[in-house]
């Protein structure tokens, strides 16, 4: 009896429900470790080696220190530093798609959730605007490629309407190639953003809007003073995911320009640049160095956006 009494509290101390919690979250951490963390370190490691394939022969891996990074930041004969140029391209292409994407999505989300407008057939519109996101980006890109090719329907239409005499080579002009890429990215993603922002707005207590209304706030005031501040967490999330997605832009420009980033490599994004090194020559050294730089830039930018949007004044 005595013994039992002594043992019981001792046993109770060891019972910890926390271990079940750890067990349940373990799968994520194990998969994360295997599929994310380990490759991440491997990328850093690889970036210090000369390691590529020349035809059927393998060269390396030979340790070369920072040579790959130095090569990346060495300007060419015309004074262009490649990686900065492609980073610039990526930012331009991203902004061109993301700004209209967020503005239009915000506008649509407000229209759809407004209890004053009460738009009919919401489900229909939501489905329609979300639809482009269901198409594979590469298929969508292929479609645009066909539409805007030199012998494609757009050129034929423009010629028939008498607007142009000779076919316009849309893929040889910087502004049209970039414009098309931005347009496609916008079309692909604005539906998704709208749905996210709508969820955010619907999560705001309706009393807030009513109170604002009773106090005589105009729609603009309600938007800037009530909706926007309360929507910030979702908006931050949207912008950060869009930013990361934007920095990793690949499929649309790759398919549209057949991997060449024409003209003058002005629609070549960072990931396309990375892919160029991996495609034929399996140049893990250079590709690793580019990946590391993209990783650092993405991390810094996410931090910046997060800070600037969550800071309370």
């Amino acid at each position, binding site marked *: 009896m005595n013994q039992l009494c002594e043992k019981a509290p001792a046993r109770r101390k060891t019972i910890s429900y926390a271990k*079940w919690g750890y*067990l*349940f979250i*373990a*799968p994520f951490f*194990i*998969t994360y470790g*295997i599929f994310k963390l380990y490759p991440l370190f491997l990328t850093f490691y690889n970036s210090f080696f000369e390691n*590529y*394939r*020349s*035809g*059927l022969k393998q*060269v390396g891996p030979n340790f070369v220190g920072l040579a790959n990074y130095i090569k990346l930041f060495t300007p*060419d*004969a*015309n004074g*262009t530093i*490649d990686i900065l140029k492609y980073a610039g391209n990526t930012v331009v292409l991203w902004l061109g798609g993301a700004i209209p994407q967020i503005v239009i999505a915000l506008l649509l989300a407000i229209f759809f959730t407004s209890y004053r407008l009460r738009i009919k057939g919401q489900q229909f519109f939501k489905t329609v605007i979300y639809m482009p996101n269901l198409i594979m980006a590469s298929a969508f890109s292929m479609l645009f490629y066909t539409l805007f*090719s*030199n*012998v494609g329907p757009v050129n034929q239409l423009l010629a028939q309407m008498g607007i142009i005499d000779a*076919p316009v*080579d849309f893929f*040889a*002009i*910087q502004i049209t190639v970039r414009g098309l890429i931005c347009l496609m990215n916008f079309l692909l993603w604005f539906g998704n953003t709208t749905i996210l922002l709508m969820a955010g707005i619907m999560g705001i207590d309706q009393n807030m809007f009513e109170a604002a209304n009773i106090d005589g706030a105009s729609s603009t005031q309600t938007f800037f003073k009530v909706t926007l501040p309360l929507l910030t967490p979702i908006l931050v999330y949207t912008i950060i995911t869009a930013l990361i997605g934007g920095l990793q832009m690949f499929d649309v420009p790759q398919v549209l320009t*057949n*991997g*060449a980033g*024409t*003209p*003058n*490599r002005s629609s070549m994004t960072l990931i396309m640049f990375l892919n*160029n*090194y991996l*495609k*034929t*020559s399996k*140049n893990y050294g*250079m590709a690793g160095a580019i990946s590391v730089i993209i990783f650092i830039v993405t991390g810094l930018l996410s931090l910046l956006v997060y800070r600037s949007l969550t800071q309370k004044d």
Partner: protein
Amino acid sequence: MKKALALLLALVMTLSLAACGASEPAATQAPAADKPATTPAAPAATEAPAEEGKVFNIYAWNEEFKGFFEKYYTVPEGVTVNWIINPSDGNMYQTKLVEALLNQADAPDDEKIDMFLAEADYIMKYADSEYTQDITALGVTDFSNTYPYTVQAASDANGVVKGVSFQCCPSALIYRRSIAKDVLGTDDPAEVQALLNSWDKFNAVAAEAKAKGYYMTSSEAETFRVFSNNGEAPLVDESGKLVLNDAIRAWQAQAKDFTDKGYTLTCDIWSDECTAQMFADGKTMCFFGPAWYFNFCMGNAQDPDKGCYGDWAICEGPAAHFWGGTWLLAATGSDNPTMLADIMDTFINDEEVCSNLIKNEAQFTNNQTVNAKFAEDPTYGNDFLGGQNDVAVFLELAKNIKFENKTIYDQELTEGLQGYWREYCDGEVTEAEAMANYYKYINEMDPEIVTP
């Protein structure tokens, strides 16, 4: 009860993780998926080496040879021919091929490459490697009918023959008869040749064609091979440095000149825009190509409604050259050596098959005897060329083929140069920018080449 349930759930989760996480344990734990499929085949192949494989794998980049193969080669009973076709665009074919060849030793017999196709621009890379095998050892020994350059191209540095070509590819100037009549006043091949037998004359005629509202060529890269084939040095020298020889520079100058003066359209030679010029309403007078070009690239010209079948003819043009050609290479490790040798022998030595290739497929074969027979046959004529005996023309041109100054990088170097130089021709970039972009492309594709 709750504990038991929790434990069960946790077990399920960790198990499912193990199944999709680490591939090796999963494979040993769950043999259900692919093991039964491979096990019956593997012992059969290892136990009886005399019996050959049941699957014949061929890597190719288009359907051209597949068509001939299916029509003219009788596959031994019980053998399935498996075509693995990847287009050449963006080097995809070679990327996949290299991957498969490097894994060849570990692949199951039925998945091993038995034969693969290679093009003049990169055949050296494979012929001069351990991934292809000596076909004379397999039983292909009679090369007496073939063109010597085709054997040389498929041989390694020591002269060991690794494959054969089913075609010989002297390239000719292919012109639209109706446009030639309008511009030159004649469509007779001999007379047209006399008017176009040098670059000076060619350029002068281009101006006349332009004046009459025609294009001389449909792409600024159309004449690339005519120049590049006559280059005096390989594109990459012994020290691994990129050197654009005078012939390439001459092409670059002509491409820019022709674009500026409106003598040509600017587009890729494989693009729809280029081939659209072969329709009856096309405005282009000259194309360049070997016999394979007629059926493989000039489909639009043969279109029953919009085409212009018979409105074409060929002559040598400003300079003798050859273009491409498809070789069949024997992959090391093939489990179908007899069939492999038989295919190669058929396409170079079987006179009936070679005759059919000329008659039905408008090819110029790699069998000199058969070619000579058709060249001398007064009843033979190619209807697509308005009845002209193209074999006779190619027979003469074939004498000039020199397979020299080639490098293993030619395909990438050629494709890249045409693409980046086009941007300069179009006025999108300066010459320095175009060349800088080209060098970047080379550094990405072939890091060991030293660029200026």
